[in-house]
Every structure is written in C-alpha cells, then in structure tokens.
C-alpha cells in the first residue's frame, strides 16, 4: 500500500512559535476537569473540519501589533488554548498559513489565521491526535 502523502507543513513557521485556538468556555462547553480536578481543554475542541483546525499564529499577531486576546474579541464566553508549533508537529500535525479566510467573521486577527493539518488516517488515529492536541495545550484563563 502506498504511503500517505506528507501532511502540509509550512517550514517558515518556527517551532518555538505559538498557535492559539478559540475554545468555548461559557458553561464549560468545551472545558472538562482532568483527574486532578484541573480545568483542561476537551479533545472535542480540536475537531477538524474539511479544511483543518483553525488557529492563530502568535508571531503574525505580533507583527500586526495585536495581542493574543484579539482572537476572542467579540466572542463572549471564549478562552484561548495555546500550543507551541513544535508540540503540534511532534503529533504529526502540520501548520500552514491561511490568512483572511472568507468563511469567517472579518476580524483584524484573521491575518494570523492558520490551519492545523492532520493527514488522512483512521477515525481512531484522528481521535488520538485530538487527544494529543488537548493534552499539550494550555488554557489561558
């Protein structure tokens, strides 16, 4: 069987850069408690659609003089989960730039929009990647 195609991955994005994911918090919608009672991101917060998983890149936000919090301006009840690009790639997930997508609410932070790309794999493997992303993510707030 042929090997799956390599996952898209923009090598111009430094491993020490950070990506931010919007997570619905109000009512603990996508936040759960771990076995110690700590608030953590559910793996369900890292489900991908046909394009990938939407995130925002710290370095591009900084170039545009934007704070990370700009990503959730106007999104009441949301918090950010942050992950280093290196941690994302260690899970076999690629990071690609996708600035100003036309299917999202227009916002200044969209210049920093990126997609996390998961290579085609089984349902079980995809779920493990989501669990991995949730595990290495850090909730801000």
């Amino acid at each position, binding site marked *: 069987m042929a090997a799956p195609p390599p996952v898209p991955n923009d090598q111009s994005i430094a491993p020490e850069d950070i990506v931010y994911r*919007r997570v*619905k918090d109000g*009512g*603990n*919608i*996508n936040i*759960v*408690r*771990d*076995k110690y009672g700590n608030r*953590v991101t*559910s*793996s*369900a*917060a890292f*489900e991908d*659609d046909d394009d990938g998983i*939407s995130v925002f890149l710290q370095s591009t936000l900084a170039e545009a003089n934007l704070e990370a919090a700009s990503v959730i301006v106007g*999104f009441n009840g*949301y918090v950010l989960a942050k992950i280093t690009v290196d941690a994302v790639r260690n899970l076999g997930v690629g990071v690609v730039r996708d600035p100003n997508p036309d*299917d*999202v*609410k227009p916002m200044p932070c969209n210049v920093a929009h990126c997609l996390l790309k998961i290579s085609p794999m089984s*349902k*079980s493997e995809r*779920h*493990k990647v989501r*669990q991995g992303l949730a595990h290495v993510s850090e909730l801000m707030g």
Partner: protein
Amino acid sequence: MTPLTTLPTPEVSDPSGDIRITDSPLTPRRVAVAIQLPPGEPEPWWAKSVEDRLEELAHLESNWNGHGAQPPRPEAVLIGVRVIAFLLGTHQNWPLPQIVPTWQGGLQLEWHLHSGDIEITVDPRDAVWAYLSDGRNSIDGPLTEMESRVSDLLGLAAG
C-alpha cells in the same frame, strides 16, 4: 424542565419508549429530555444532572464554537442518554460523565479518572465509539465491543 406537552414536535424517541427528546423550533431553541418510567419507579439517580446538561448544550446556536459547529442533534441526545443509562444503570456511586458537544452535532462523554480516561463519541451517523487510556496504553472500538472494559474502569473509580 419545560413540560413536553408545551413543546411542538419534532420528537425522537427510544424504541422502548422510555426516553423522549423533543426539539422545539421556537427561539431560543429548547430541547426537552424526558425519561419515561413505569408508575411508581423512581427516576434514575443520574437523570436530573444529565437532563440539565443536555438541555444546556441544546441551547447552543449554530456556529457556537466560532468555527462552524452545529448544536447537538436530538438523535445524538437520545443516543447519549441511552449510553449513559446503559453504562450507569443503577450503580449509585459510579461517576457521571462530563458531556461536551462535538462540532457536527454530536456529543462526547468523558470520564477522566485516576483509573484511566474514557471518551465516548456519539454521532448519529456513525457507531458509538469508545476510547480508553490508562496513560500508557490506549484502546478503542465500538462501544458494543468495549462495554465491559468501560464498566471495569467506572467500577474501579467507584471503589
């Protein structure tokens, strides 16, 4: 809970007729979860918390996650209640799941326990799937094939 009689259809119900999910087209959307019991039989101990949480999630609007997510579908809610009833049954001290929505209108039931992690995905278009992990090893499969492992973990957590 809003009485079912005040809510219009559509409605989905369990074949046994003991669980009914009524999805109101009113604004704001209301989904009522009703567990029907034979006369004189007490409500399951987990029913109130599960009903409250599912109705809370049912209030989510389209694009609730800012990335195009759909609110839980009544069919997913029905299956979710069936799964919880199936697993918890009358085990009074077993842990309740944490219930979160998935972006395509499904649900995910999660237990993060000292004995291990359990995540069960409920998508009406797919089999109910269970993912178990003890921190070193993980295993997954259809819940129908994982039921005893899930029950073992929940029982361990209850002591």
